[in-house]
């Protein structure tokens, strides 16, 4: 087969977009030095240059991926999925810091709560075991909550008893 025919066949088998021609800059591989150590330099590169580099990589990826150089593949993967921007790894010990601040917050709340309680009035006279036993007798004698509550058949709960004895 003559080389002319072979070239024609190769040309015909390419996708139409390829035949329309790509931008000249993207038909050539991006140089290795441009992409070397990209993961170390990326965040220091100004956004305009980042965009430009990414656009040229994207244009390269529109073609045959087998033609990409190793450096291009690595850089494209790292820019697309690497741990930068929203995917940055959290700084060392961040979990501990969050835990510590939460504990401090809870401690301060408990201290405020405790201080307020210390100045509060004592519990009402009804909050003693004796009173609550009397309440139970009062309600039981009057058949309160006869279906499921204190006066129901086989009731085993404590009823209204919830406080320590006043004599204790």
């Amino acid at each position, binding site marked *: 087969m003559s080389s002319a025919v072979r070239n024609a066949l190769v040309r015909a088998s390419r996708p139409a977009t390829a035949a329309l021609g790509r931008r000249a800059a993207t038909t050539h591989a991006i140089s290795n030095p441009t992409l070397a150590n990209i993961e170390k330099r990326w965040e220091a590169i100004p956004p305009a240059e980042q965009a430009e580099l990414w656009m040229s990589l994207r244009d390269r990826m529109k073609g045959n991926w087998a033609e990409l150089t190793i450096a291009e593949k690595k850089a494209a993967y790292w820019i697309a999925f690497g741990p930068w921007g929203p995917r940055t790894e959290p700084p060392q010990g961040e979990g501990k810091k969050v835990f510590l601040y939460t504990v401090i917050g809870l401690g301060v709340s408990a201290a405020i709560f405790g201080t307020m309680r210390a100045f509060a009035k004592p519990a009402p006279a*009804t909050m003693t075991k004796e*009173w609550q036993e009397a309440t*139970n007798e009062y309600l039981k*004698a009057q*058949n309160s*909550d006869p279906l499921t509550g204190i006066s129901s058949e086989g009731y085993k709960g404590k009823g209204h008893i919830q406080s320590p004895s006043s004599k204790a």
Partner: protein
Amino acid sequence: MFFLINKLVMNFDAPSPWGIYFQDSATPQMEGLNELHDNIMYYLVVILFAVGWILLSIVINYVSTKSPISHKYLNHGTLIELIWTITPAVILILIAFPSFKLLYLMDEVSDPSMSVLAEGHQWYWSYQYPDFLDSNDQFIEFDSYIVPESDLDEGGLRMLEVDNRVVLPELTHVRFIITAGDVIHSFAAPALGIKCDAYPGRLNQVSVFINREGVFYGQCSEICGILHSSMPIVIESVSLEKFLIWLKEQ
């Protein structure tokens, strides 16, 4: 007199400490509310566990260390979105039907045998029985104030007892007409399944049919000022004979 009725009527229905369920019901309305609640809770627990399991398995299976880049460009899935939009809508409709049915059943005031006017004030309730006259040919009416802690008998329910209770006959259709004299209050008794706002210049009505004797406690249920918590409601359901005796005493 109320001491006498306390001795005669052997029933009370009161809140219990740390109670997490309804008081025992004493009206068909409250039976209906209990049943609706229990039915919905059953399906709610099933849904809770299903959704919890889905969430948990997503968190476990798609944790970033396990599948760091999977579905980076997946923005939407029409089928799954349809499923998780339509299913809750259907569930809400299934809840809405029995709920509205019960709501309109409870709204119905069915041919009451007697009416009681309850008027909220800052901070007490006053009651009037417009179907009955007292010895002076006036409507029976009285105010109902809280019994303060210092005046409670041993074992009395703090913040719930009142000096004058609303006495009603059991197994009778009673209509409460509810209004207020100053600000908005709300007339509520959990065991009877009623809660109705009391507005100045407006009459609301609820129907109760108490199906057992007992004493039912409620509280004002609309913030009405500094002593909102100190205007409890006590409704005492007695047999018709005892009710007539009570009427005669007024």
